[in-house]
């Protein structure tokens, strides 16, 4: 057998679900917070609040990553998501003139279908994973998520996708710039008033996010 394929332990865990460890308790509590924040984020009628609840959810997830010993991923999560993605989203909301306060039509008429599909998805996925992992135990403490280990694996094994990603980021950057530049900007002499609207807000942030990720 090749060593390429790692294998997790399916052997029955030494500890049952009813005698949780401290890490587990924290994980579950944070998880509930994440889930709650996520639900509020997709359910609230206040659009800006939705973005803020998203911050909570993503931040909670960063804690979960930490609990799963993936420090590096957790920091990247905080940096990129909280530092830039959410800011971008807020900018997006502002630029599309999202109303501050409750907007009664935040949800489309598709809500019930959405609920149905989401519940079906939840049921299916939860059934699947519970069925598959009911006895699996994560042996934490291997410390496999530090920046050096992850970085080494990235640059040793995953060079090709990493390089491809650079093309992706550059393309996203250029694409975002070109799309958010208004058409008038292509005309040699734009009116000065239009320049502000043509500022490539999203693109600039998108450009920043990869660079921050790369530097870290």
């Amino acid at each position, binding site marked *: 057998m090749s060593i390429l394929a790692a294998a997790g332990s399916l052997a029955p865990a030494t500890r049952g679900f009813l005698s949780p460890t401290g890490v587990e308790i924290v994980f579950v509590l944070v998880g509930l917070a994440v889930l709650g924040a996520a639900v509020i984020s997709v359910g609230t009628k206040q659009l800006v609040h939705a973005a803020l609840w998203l911050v909570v959810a993503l931040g909670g997830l960063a804690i979960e990553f930490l609990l799963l010993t993936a420090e590096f991923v957790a920091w990247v999560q905080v940096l990129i998501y909280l530092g830039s993605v959410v800011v971008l989203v807020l900018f997006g909301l502002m630029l599309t003139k999202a109303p501050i306060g409750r907007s009664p039509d935040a949800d489309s008429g598709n809500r019930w279908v959405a609920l149905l*599909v989401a519940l079906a998805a939840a049921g299916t996925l939860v059934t699947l994973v519970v069925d598959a992992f009911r006895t699996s135990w994560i042996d934490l403490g291997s410390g496999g998520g530090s920046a050096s280990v992850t970085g080494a694996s990235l640059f040793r094994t995953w060079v090709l996708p990493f390089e491809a990603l650079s093309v992706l980021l550059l393309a996203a950057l250029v694409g975002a710039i070109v799309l958010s530049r208004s058409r008038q900007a292509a005309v040699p002499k734009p009116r000065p008033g239009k320049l502000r609207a043509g500022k490539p807000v999203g693109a600039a942030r998108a450009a920043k996010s990869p660079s921050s990720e790369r530097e870290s």
Partner: protein
Amino acid sequence: MNTALPALVPALPALGAAATFATGRRAPRFARPLAIVPVVLSGVLALVTALQLGTGRTLDAATRLTPTGGPDISLAIHLDGYTSLVTVLVGLVASCVQIYSTAYLRDDPRYPSYAALVSLFTAAMFLVVYSGDLIVLLVGWEVMGICSYFLIGHHWETADARSASLKAFLVTKLGDVPFLFGLFLLGADAGTFRISGVLAAAADGRLAHPTLIALLLLAGVAGKSAQFPLHSWLPDAMAGPTPVSALIHAATMVAAGIYLVARLLPVFLLSGAALVVLAVMAAVTMIGSALCALAQDDIKRVLAYSTVGQLGYMAGALAAGDREAAVFHLVSHGAFKALLFLSAGVLIHAAHTNSLSAMSRMPWLAERVPDARWTLGIGLVALVGLPPFSGFFSKEAVFTAAEHAARGEALTNGVGPASGVPEAAGWIVLIAAGLTVLLTAAYATRLWLLAFPGRRAVALAGAVVPRGEAAEGHAAALADTGEDLPVAASSTATAPSVHATEPAAMRWPLWVLAIPAMGFGVAGLRPNWLPALLDGGSLRPSLATAVLGTGLALAGVLISYAAWRTVTARAARAAVAEGAPAPQSTDATDPGRALLGPLYGPAQHGFGVDRLYERLFVLPTVGAAKLVRFLDREVVEGYVQASGGGARLLGWAVRRAQTGNAQTYLSALLAGVVLIAVFVAVGT
């Protein structure tokens, strides 16, 4: 010998037809040469082929057409004396018809398509005759059916023509269905569709179901050759142009059935029951049609019924096991019947009416059409069968065959065992034929007397009718006979007498045909003439039947004449008494009425066969058709529509889903994903 020559015979008219179809509309000038030349050429080629083949030889050549799972289908050609004889006849008649048509349909805008169809028709008949393979024969057979449909319906503006063509098509198809089964059964039993193979199989007794095959085939033959009970399309087919009638009646369509039985006679000889059925069929056909002919007013219908009757003779000869006699009569009949039709065409052309009673009031008619008068006479005499015209000899051959069969020593000429023919078949045919000779003579005489009554008779019948009224009557006749004369349409306004003599192209084919009508009979006299070409049996008339036949014919003529005289005289007296002839007494001079008595009415309407059909077939068929239409529309059409409509409906659904709302798309996408995940996960 070279097979290219006979192969060219059906090919040429077919090509001609194709060329006419192709160029007809754009270059109508070429239509006539394109119509005539290939047909004449192939007629010549048929003659050359026949001469090359000579007598007593046969030729079989085949190239495998397609390997099938079952018996192979091959493009086979079979030449023997029969094919020679029939092809020459077909070539002759078709050539005459094509030439005649150029004049007859001179001003018809649809002439090119008509000519093309005639060519195609001829080609199909050639194919049927030459084919050595049953499937190829079937192709020709069906092409003929389709061509006849179009040709009979040539004047499709008239309801008559439309219904007649449809009727011809349906009735012949009615026979073709069992025919097809018969062919397949035959092919399956014999293991081949080659006619030679089939005959060999029949000779070896390898056919498992000879009676069934024979009966199934007979259905097709009855349809094509207009035998009872499928004869009724033929009189109606008179709605087609007269030359087409000549073609159908003389040489092509109706001959095909007889020819097929003649070719496959060994198969039929295996089944006594089939022969008896054939004999009964022939007998009923003969007598019935002769009676009907006696009562018809339309000259073409008289001739049509006479054709049905003469076909009955041939079928009778076949039932008696003598195909020589059958084909002999086929050929001589082909010649004189084509002559009769073409002459009648001239007559109609001149008189502008089909009606005999109307003609009887046109004393000038005989002078207008001297050629037609003569040739019509010749044809009628041949039809009646007076010596030495061809009809006499061929009819005697049939009599002889029937007589021998009745005595249990059928003249099968080596085709099969004489004992294969039941004596009953012979008796039935013999008695029916005798009776028919009498009737034939009667209606032929009636036809002649009504068409050319002569001055004295007109005087008798009351020539006091003013000229103008005659013209009126003529116009009325035109209107209600569904006149098929395109020329007539342009000249109805003018007085008939102004009309010049008929065009030469319509006259000289008559004389060409008159020669065989008169002289062909002698071909059977010497054993090394016609019999050598055929199976070799004697075609000499025997004394007893000759005397009997001729006597009956003469009796028929005399009876008819006497009846005519009586009724004419009575009508004259009545006219004198009343002062003016009532219009409804126009057929008072008809001897048929007197002869038939109470039978006249039924006979006029074909003994209600059509009505019987109406009851037996049409009504149930209409009912079934309604059912089928319902099924077709709601069920079959449903499937067809459903496949089309279903596709469209599905397309509608798919396009409806394309709402433009991205969230609908995403819903479908994610729902699809969930479904897939569930199915995959559950499936394991």
